[in-house]
Every structure is written in structure tokens, then in C-alpha cells.
């Protein structure tokens, strides 16, 4: 089996070890979906900045550019982990709402509560709800789509019951906490830093931990995962717990950022989270994709929303553009995957 690397593309697929380490890394990076989405994101930002430099240059513009996607960033990273296992979590919007309300109630009851503790409690509450989703999906052997659709109704119903028609406003939460909503370190908002640290950690975990890699295996072929002796149910439950925890955290971030919470916080955001993951290169049927890609996807979706009016497109058309973007992303994925599969099969003729 002598293999002369004629076609560079196939070489990267079939004989990556034959390439020098640096070339390999570079080529993998250049072909990665993360990079292409990031480039689109940069183009969007640049286009908006040319029209209106304030979009990036002014201190508020810069802060909002980073702050606006923060919540979706967290949700998309959590959603990625679930989608990688070939499931989906439609209840994240309701979990966010519950956690945001919980945060408000906590501060009303204990105004002296350290903000850190609010983040911990919010995430823990989200993790608990994620645990419910995960256990029912994994051990009930029922499709995640249906279960999380059901729990979406249930969790939202709980927030509604709890919150009723009231609203927790900024004046009812301590300033220490609300300041976090806009606090900056070296001009970078604290909430954004928190979200980025978490996204990077989740991405790193998925790449370098055994259990992280097992999530990919479970989604790539669930039956094979059982034959391998992988703890499939535990991994699925774990994925839902992580997604729930991040949604819970996003709820606390929501409370800090917007300063006002009512029972409808986070309504409908679950589709955006799924869309961000899909745009960021996460395959909807599991097995591939990164949390980083999803985060960039989230950044792109949210930034497009605020950039469109700058480039003169009425914001009524934003959603249409987002939809077109999602479809373009999955069509592109399919085309690339089909090309790769074909190359791999044809390469068998030559070997």
C-alpha cells in the first residue's frame, strides 16, 4: 500500500500523519467550520463598523457587542453537548426563566447574598432540572424532542405559577449584583468573560476528557457505544445536566444583565440555541461539532441582529436573514460531508 499524496484534500483525510505536524494543524484549522463562521462574524462586524464606527469603537458599542451574545453563548454551548449525544434540549428557555426568577426571589429574600452564590444556586437549580430531563430521556428510552417539549411547558408553568403577574425590577436587586451586568475588566464585560471561560472549558472538556469523547461516541453510533461498554445512559444524563446547568447560569446572567425579571424571561430562546449550534457546525444528528463553533454561531446570530440596521436593512428582515443563514449552514455541511465521504470511498480504488 504505497500512497503518494497527490491530492492534498485526500491526503489530509487519509494520511494526516504523513504531513508535518504544523502543516496538519494549519490545514485542519483552515478547513474547520469554526474558522469560516468566525470569518463571517468578523465580516459582519467590519461591515457594521464601516457604516458606523461607534458599533465597535465607542465604549458602549464595544461593550454591547460582547454582552449581547453572552446569554445565547452559554445556551449554545450547553445545547451542543446535548446535540452531540444525538439528543436535543428544548427546555432551556424555560430553565433560564426559572433560574432568572429564582435569582430575583433570592435577592429579595436575602439582599446580602454574595452574587457568586447566586451564580452557584442558579446553575445548581438548572442542573437539577437538566437531571430530570436526562433521566427521563435516558432511562425512559423516549425521544428527547418530546420530553423536553413537555418539560418546556411544565417548567414554564412553574415559573408562571411562582411569578404570577408580578415583576422583579432593578430596585429590588442589590446594586452589587446589577453592576456585574455592566462591569468591565480591561474594557471586557465580566459576564462575557464568565461565559467565555465556561465555553472554553466545555470545549476543552469535550476534546480532552474521556467522558467528553464518550459523548461524541454515543452520538456517532449509539448502538456501537453500547457494544463498547460505554456508560451511555450516564453520559446522556450528564449532557442534560450540563445543558441545564448552563441554562441556569444563563438565567442568573439574564437577571444581572437586564435587571428586570418576569415570568416570560427566555421564552422562545431554545430555537435560537439550536440554531446557533447548527450554524456553528454541530451536526444535528450527533457525533460531531464543538462548543467553540456553537459559541461563534451564537455570536454571529446575535451580532447580525444588531448589525443589520447599521447596514441599512430594516430590522424586520433580520429573522429572515437568520433563517437563510441556518439553511445555508446545513446545506454547506451536507455538501462538504458528501464530498469528503466520496473522496474517502474513491480513495479505496487507489490503495
Amino acid at each position, binding site marked *: 500500500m504505497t500512497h503518494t499524496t497527490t491530492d492534498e484534500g485526500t491526503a489530509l483525510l487519509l494520511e494526516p500523519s504523513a504531513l508535518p505536524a504544523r502543516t496538519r494543524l494549519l490545514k485542519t484549522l483552515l478547513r474547520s467550520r469554526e474558522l469560516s463562521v468566525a470569518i463571517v462574524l468578523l465580516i459582519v462586524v467590519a461591515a457594521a463598523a464601516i457604516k458606523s464606527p461607534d458599533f465597535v469603537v465607542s465604549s458602549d458599542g464595544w461593550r454591547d457587542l460582547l454582552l449581547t451574545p453572552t446569554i445565547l453563548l452559554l445556551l449554545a454551548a450547553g445545547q451542543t453537548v446535548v446535540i452531540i449525544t444525538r439528543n436535543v434540549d428544548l427546555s432551556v428557555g424555560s430553565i433560564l426563566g426559572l433560574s432568572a426568577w429564582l435569582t430575583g426571589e433570592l435577592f429579595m429574600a436575602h439582599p446580602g447574598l454574595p452574587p457568586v452564590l447566586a451564580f452557584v444556586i442558579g446553575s445548581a437549580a438548572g442542573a437539577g432540572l437538566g437531571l430530570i430531563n436526562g433521566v427521563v430521556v435516558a432511562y425512559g428510552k423516549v425521544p428527547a424532542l418530546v420530553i423536553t417539549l413537555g418539560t418546556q411547558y411544565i417548567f414554564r408553568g412553574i415559573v408562571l405559577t411562582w411569578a404570577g403577574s408580578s415583576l422583579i425590577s432593578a430596585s429590588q436587586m442589590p446594586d452589587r449584583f446589577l453592576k456585574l451586568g455592566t462591569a468591565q475588566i480591561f474594557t471586557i464585560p465580566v459576564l462575557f468573560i464568565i461565559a467565555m471561560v465556561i465555553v472554553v472549558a466545555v470545549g476543552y472538556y469535550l476534546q480532552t476528557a474521556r467522558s467528553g469523547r464518550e459523548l461524541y461516541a454515543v452520538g456517532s453510533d449509539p448502538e456501537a457505544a453500547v457494544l463498547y461498554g460505554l456508560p451511555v445512559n450516564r453520559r446522556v444524563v450528564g449532557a442534560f445536566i450540563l445543558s441545564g446547568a448552563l441554562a441556569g447560569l444563563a438565567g442568573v446572567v439574564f437577571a444581572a444583565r*437586564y435587571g428586570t425579571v418576569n415570568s416570560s424571561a427566555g421564552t422562545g430562546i431554545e430555537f435560537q440555541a439550536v440554531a446557533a449550534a447548527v450554524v456553528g457546525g454541530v451536526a444535528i444528528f450527533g457525533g460531531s461539532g464543538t462548543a467553540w463553533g456553537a459559541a461563534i454561531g451564537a455570536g454571529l446570530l446575535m451580532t447580525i441582529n444588531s448589525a443589520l440596521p447599521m447596514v441599512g436593512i430594516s430590522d424586520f428582515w433580520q429573522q429572515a436573514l437568520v433563517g437563510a443563514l441556518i439553511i445555508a449552514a446545513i446545506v454547506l455541511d451536507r455538501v462538504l460531508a458528501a464530498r469528503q465521504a466520496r473522496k474517502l470511498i474513491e480513495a479505496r480504488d487507489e490503495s
Partner: protein
Amino acid sequence: GKADTGTSSDGESGGSGDKPLSIVFLPKNLGNPYFDASDAGGKKAVEALGGTFSEVGPQTASPDAQVQYINTAAQQHASAIVLSANDPKAVGSALTQAKSSGTKIVTFDSDTEAQYRDLFVNQASPEGIAKAQVDGLAEQIGDSGEIAILSASANATNQNAWIDLMKKDLQADHPDIKLVDTVYGNDDDQTSFDKTAALLKNHPNLKGIISPTTVGIAAAARYLSTSKSKGKVALTGLGTPNQMRKFVEDGTVTEFYLWNPTDLGTLAAYAAAALANGEITGKEGDKFTAGDLGDYTVGADNTVLLGDPTGFNKDNIGDFDF
């Protein structure tokens, strides 16, 4: 009439006296402190009259969800529905049906088309509301420069009416002020917040924002208070004192306006009761008493007017709690 052949048909429409008074308050959506205040006023009034009060409403401010609650109230043969409409037309056929089964319809805060209701309780004359906000802002920004409007939903009747009047006022009395943009926050806190951010970015020379909606002005104030535009971009509009107190005190907002929503709810409840027990029919010139608020007369277009809006500022905001 046609559909009303059920078991509990009570014959006479209008329910004269002997039928217990039951009034359903149906705000645009739940979770809105403005409606909390008005419904509280309504509740007190209804209970004072010895009737049963109930407050129902959808989660989000959409007309289709409101229709279901109108239907339910009609099924229960409620004496009257007191409604703030999410769409002037979309709730129309449901209201017509409710009317035909004997329920009186009072709108408040946001009206429907006139044929669908018996009475509209107007918080303030649209002209008065528009003028208060425009003149207020003009004074704050020195009567010239770019301003923008942050409204609720694109279809909110009252908002659109006020915006039209504001435009006329601007043209007539403030030629140097330029309205550069109107954006819609859908009475959603997060959306309004993000729209404010976008407004400031898109219009670097913006000098003022008018937000004629309580959700919008609070969100905009919160954004402004943390941005470098605080104190440079003026903000006014319609808001509740409790929500705005903080921003008036920290200087983000100089003055904003509102009528007293509790009084509005009270007046609507008394009007509904008067209709239900046949005291008035809603035609121009009808008179009724609204408890402590005193006597009111139905004006043109079957409308009752509460009064002029109040301005809230550093000096008087401490006197209010709603």
C-alpha cells in the same frame, strides 16, 4: 344570540339587578406592573360594589390568546369584561359574541374599534398625552436635535395614535427637532433594552428618546443609566413611579408622565358596573358616579376621560407608590 341556546340562558340581556355582578379584568398580559396597579383599583371598586372580581390574561401580549379569555368570560355570562386590547380588530368578533350573550364590554388603556365595545375609559386625551411628552422632551434638550421613539408593539392602537399626534406636535411647535427613528420593543423588557442599545449606536447624535410605554421606558432607563450616554441623551415617556424612581434619583431621567393607573382601573370598574346594572347604556351624555373619584359623564364616541397625565420628577416622585 344564535349560539346562546344553552341550558343556562337567562332570557333578558343586560342582567337587571338580581343577577350577581361579576366583572372580569383582562389586561394585555400578565406580569406587567402597570396592569397590576390598574387591576388592583378595579378589584377594590368591584368588591366595594359587592360583585365578584377576576383577573385573567395571557402570558404574552397577543390578541389570539386574549380571545380565549373573552370567550370564557362570555361562556360564564360575566356581567362585564374590562379589557385592554392587544389589537383593535382581532378581538372584535369575540367581543361581538360576548356582547350578544349579554356581557357588557368596557375597554380601557388600549381601545378596540368603537363598534366592538360599549364604552372606552380613556386614561387621558391622546392629544394631552402626546403633548406632555413632546413638550417635556423639547424642554430637556433645548428644543432642537435628533430624537427617537421606543414604542411597544407595532400594532398597539394607543401607541400608534400617540405617535401620530406627537409627529404633528413636533411639526407644528418644534421645527428644529427631528424624529429620526421609531423602534418597537414589543413591551418585552429584553427586546426594549436591546433596541435602546441599537438606537444609541445607530444614531450617534441622538439627543432624546420618548418611550410611551412603561416597559419600554424602564428598559431604556436601565440601559442609559449604565452607558456613557447617561445624562447626555434625555429620556421621557410614560412610566410608573416605582419602576422609574431609581433613574429619576440618579439623574438618568428628569421627568416622565403617567396618569394614575389605579384610578383608571377604578373608573373602568365603576363604568362596567354601571353598564351591567343598566344605570347607563354608554351613549354620550350618560352620567355615573365612580366612588371616591366623583362623577363622570360619557363623552363623544362612547368615551369616558380620566383626566390629564401627571408629570413625575425628583420633587414629587416620593409621593407615589404604584
